[in-house]
């Protein structure tokens, strides 16, 4: 008891006379308080913590893509991160910070996984990839899952995602969620473009990378921007009276003589066209 700074400690200094019992009580209190700390954690605690924290680090490897080699990390749940860091160490650091997980490089990724990723990049896979999105906010997950629905070779505007996930006013938040996409290329945030038809920005290498990856999927972004500059947002067919986003597979099937252009969904509706049920360019009429 070198430093007597506490009320209780000061009172614990025995003073003569009637203060003796108070002093003893104060000393007892401190001793009893200290005794409360003599406790052992339940035996299972450590195992529970390890079950939630430990475990097996994610593995990652380099995969060739239309954008050059990218790192792909995966866990037992599925793909957990994709990035273009300059070195394996930098990517491991990125995974640690972005996803809060440990990751280690492997030179021998499972051949089936590599084949499946290659099929996805080529638009030749019908089976969805297994993804590990644990730890992301529900809104982010909703945005990313919606982006997954955009078919290979097609694009949709940001406000399409906002409307489809029933947060029509959250267009900016959709943009943020896509910009933070931990699994670019495989969660195709590159297929989401600006509402005015310009292709917009891209995290994995900027605008030119976005153009390249879209071109690899057969999307003519020059044509899209030409249409955009001319004020065209939707294409319709005068034989079906249906209007679509320009890259929708239905719109691409329309032959030149039957092709009609629209500046807005309202203009299309006024002309007696209904929105395509596949690309859903507007909420279905009530």
């Amino acid at each position: 008891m070198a430093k007597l700074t506490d009320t209780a400690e000061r009172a614990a200094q025995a003073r003569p006379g009637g203060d003796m019992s108070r002093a003893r009580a104060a000393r007892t209190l401190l001793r009893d308080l200290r005794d409360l700390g003599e406790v052992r954690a339940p035996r299972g605690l450590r195992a529970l913590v390890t079950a939630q924290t430990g475990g097996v680090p994610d593995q990652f490897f380099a995969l060739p893509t239309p954008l050059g080699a990218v790192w792909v990390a995966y866990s037992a749940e599925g793909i957990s991160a994709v990035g273009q860091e300059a070195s394996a160490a930098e990517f491991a650091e990125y995974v640690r910070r972005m996803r809060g997980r440990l990751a280690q490089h492997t030179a021998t990724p499972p051949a089936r996984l590599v084949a499946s990723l290659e099929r996805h990049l080529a638009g030749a896979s019908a089976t969805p990839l297994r993804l590990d999105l644990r730890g992301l906010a529900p809104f982010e997950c909703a945005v990313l899952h919606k982006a997954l629905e955009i078919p290979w070779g097609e694009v949709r505007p940001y406000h399409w995602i906002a409307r489809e996930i029933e947060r029509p006013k959250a267009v900016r938040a959709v943009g943020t969620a896509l910009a933070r996409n931990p699994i670019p290329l495989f969660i195709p945030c590159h297929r989401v473009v600006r509402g005015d038809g310009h292709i917009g920005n891209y995290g994995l290498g900027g605008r030119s990378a976005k153009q390249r990856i879209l071109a690899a999927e057969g999307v003519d972004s020059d044509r899209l921007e030409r249409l955009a500059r001319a004020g065209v947002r939707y294409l319709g067919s005068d034989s079906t009276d249906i209007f679509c986003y320009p890259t929708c597979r239905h719109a691409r099937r329309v032959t030149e003589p039957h092709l009609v252009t629209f500046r807005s969904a309202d203009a299309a509706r006024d002309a007696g066209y209904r929105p395509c049920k596949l690309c859903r360019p507007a909420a279905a009429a009530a």
Partner: protein
Amino acid sequence: MGTDEELLAALVSDLGSGFETLVLAYQDRLYAFALRLSGSFADAQEMAQDALVRAYRALLTYPPERIGVLHLRAWLFQITRNVYRNRVRNQQLQRVPLEEWMRTEQAPCSLRTTEGADAWAIRAERRRELTLLLGRLPERQRSAVILRHVMGLGYDELAAALHEPIGTAKSDVHRGIRTLRTLMQEANDGEAD
């Protein structure tokens, strides 16, 4: 078990195994803090678990420079306290009947099993009463008293853990102790009547 400096060095060099060591070094202390703060064994286990998992997730996102200079002890208690406050806010705490309390305090979670059964029963009863009294303090004073006098933190650590200036931390401890003594006096007077 290793000092905090050694623990930090271990965390920086290998987070996975370093964290295992951290859990071993801190699980009893964080559990004890959670137990005296919440007064409930079931809650304390969940809180300590929660706090350690949160600490791990945070460490994953920290660059090594930041881990190296962490004030580990204060930081871990601070996380545990935040877990408790969140649970109070979200009304996630369980209510534990007193009999349960008594039984669990006597379970072999104690360090000293050599004591006689009678001595232990007295000690368990004293612990139970004191924990119940602590439960009547405002949370800030309770946290301050427990960290200072149960967990034995110095005032600089206490201030860091409570995230308040040293002067405020000191006065929280003093006020808490004073209230505690008044409460005990009342309890004793009640018995005497």
